[in-house]
C-alpha cells in the first residue's frame, strides 16, 4: 500500500490555489474601511485557523476509527493530522498576534473570543506529543493517544461556545467569519484561501503518511535481509509494523 499516489497533484493544486487566492486578496479585494490594509492578514490567518481546527477534529474522527477497529493505520492518520494542525496552529497564533497588533495595537486581544479559544485549544493539543512520548508500550501509546484525540476533538467546539459566550463586551467584529456578510470582493479570495490551505494541509498529510510508511517498509526490508536491527528508541510517533 502506498500513501504517496496523489501527493504530486495535491501539491501543485495547493500551490496554484494559494497563489490565486493571495493574488486576488491583494489586487482585487477592496481595502476594508475600518482597518485598512492590515485586514489583508485575514486571508492567510483565518484559512489557516479553520484548516487547523478541522485538522484537530479530523484527528479525533480518525482516533474513533482507531479505537473501533484497532488498526494502526488510523492511529497514524490521527497522529499526522494533529501534528500538522499544531504546526499550523503556531502560524495561526503568530499571524493572529501580528494582526491584533496592527488592528488594535496589542499583541494579544483577550476580548477576541476566537483568538482566545484557539489559544486554549492549541495549549491542549501541545500536550499530545508529550503524552505519547511518556508511554513506552507502543500499543498502549496509540490507544491512549486516541482517547486523548477523541476527547480533545469534542472539546474544540464546546470550548469555542464557552469562550464566545463569556465575552461580555460587544467587540466590533471586523468580519463576520461565518462569511455571511462578507462583501463579494472579499469572499472569493477568502474561500480560495481556505481551499488552498486545505490542499496544502492535504499535501503535507499525504507526504507524512507516505514517509512514515516508507520508513516502516525499509525497516521491514532490513529485517528480512538480516541486517542488524536498528535501535528503535522511545518514540512519540506511531510505529507501523506493516502496511
Amino acid at each position: 500500500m502506498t500513501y504517496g499516489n496523489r501527493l504530486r497533484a495535491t501539491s501543485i493544486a495547493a500551490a496554484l490555489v494559494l497563489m490565486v487566492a493571495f493574488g486576488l486578496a491583494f489586487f482585487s479585494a477592496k481595502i476594508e474601511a475600518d482597518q485598512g490594509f492590515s485586514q489583508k492578514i485575514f486571508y492567510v490567518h483565518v484559512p489557516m485557523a479553520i484548516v487547523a481546527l478541522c485538522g484537530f477534529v479530523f484527528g479525533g474522527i480518525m482516533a474513533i476509527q482507531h479505537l473501533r477497529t484497532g488498526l494502526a493505520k488510523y492511529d497514524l492518520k490521527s497522529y499526522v493530522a494533529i501534528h500538522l494542525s499544531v504546526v499550523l496552529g503556531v502560524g495561526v497564533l503568530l499571524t493572529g498576534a501580528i494582526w491584533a497588533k496592527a488592528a488594535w495595537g496589542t499583541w494579544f486581544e483577550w476580548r477576541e473570543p476566537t483568538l482566545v479559544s484557539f489559544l486554549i485549544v492549541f495549549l491542549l493539543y501541545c500536550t499530545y506529543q508529550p503524552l505519547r512520548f511518556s508511554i513506552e508500550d507502543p500499543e498502549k501509546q496509540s490507544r491512549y493517544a486516541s482517547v486523548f484525540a477523541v476527547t480533545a476533538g469534542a472539546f474544540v467546539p464546546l470550548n469555542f461556545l464557552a469562550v464566545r459566550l463569556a465575552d461580555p463586551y460587544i467587540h466590533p467584529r471586523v468580519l463576520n467569519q461565518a462569511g455571511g456578510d462578507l462583501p463579494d470582493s472579499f469572499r472569493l479570495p477568502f474561500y480560495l484561501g481556505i481551499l488552498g490551505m486545505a490542499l496544502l494541509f492535504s499535501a503535507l498529510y499525504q507526504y507524512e503518511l507516505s514517509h512514515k510508511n516508507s520508513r516502516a517498509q525499509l525497516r521491514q526490508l532490513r529485517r528480512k535481509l538480516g541486517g542488524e536491527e536498528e535501535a528503535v528508541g522511545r518514540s512519540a510517533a506511531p510505529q507501523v509494523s506493516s502496511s
Partner: protein
Amino acid sequence: MRTVLTLLRKELLLERKVPQLVPAMALFSVTTFVVFHFALQQRDVDGDLAAGILVVTLLFATILGINRLYVADREEGGFDAFLLAPVDRTALGVAKALTLFAFLVLVEFVMVPAFAILLFGPGVGWELVGKLVLVLAMVNVGLSVIGALVGALAIQTRARDLIGPLVALPLLVPVVITAARALSPVLGADGPGAMEGQFLAVLGLYDLVFGLLAYALFDFLLED
C-alpha cells in the same frame, strides 16, 4: 451498579482509614486563599474577583486530587485485581468520578466557609448559599468527570505528575469560564444578583458531553 457501589465503598473506606486526599485538598485551598490575599493586596473581594478566586482555587485543589486518584490502584495492583473480576470495566471510571465528586463536596465544606471568613466582602445569606450550591454542584460534575478520565490517562505515563495537570487544565478552562461568569453576580457586592442562565446551560452541556464521552472512552484506558 453494584460494582460501582463496591468500588466507591472501597475508596471511601481507604480515605477514612488513611485520610490523604481530602485533608490535603482542603489545606491547599485555604493556603491558596492566604496566597491570594497577599498577592492581590486585598482584604475584601466580591463579584468577578471573588468568583475567579473561588473557582480557580477549586480547580487547583482538583488537580491535586487527580494526580493521586489512581495511585493506590496503580502501585498496589488494584487495576489488575479489578480486571480479573467478572464485572463491567466502566464501573471503575464511574466509581472514580463519584469518589472525586464526594471528595470535592467534603473539601468545599472547609473551603467555602474559609473563603467567606478570609476573603469574601459581602455578607452571606441563604439565597447566596443556595445559588452557590447549585453552581458548585455542576462544577463538581465537570471536574470529577474530567478528573476520572485524565487521571486514568496520566497514571500509565512515565511523567504522570506532569501529564495530568497539563492535559486537565486546558480541558477545564470552559468549566472555569462558565462557573466564574455564573458566580460573579451571585457574589456581587450588593448581595446575590440574578444568575445568567446561559452560563449554567453551557456548563450543563459540558458536563453532559464529557460525561458521556468519558463513559464511552474509559474502557480503552484499562486494557493492556
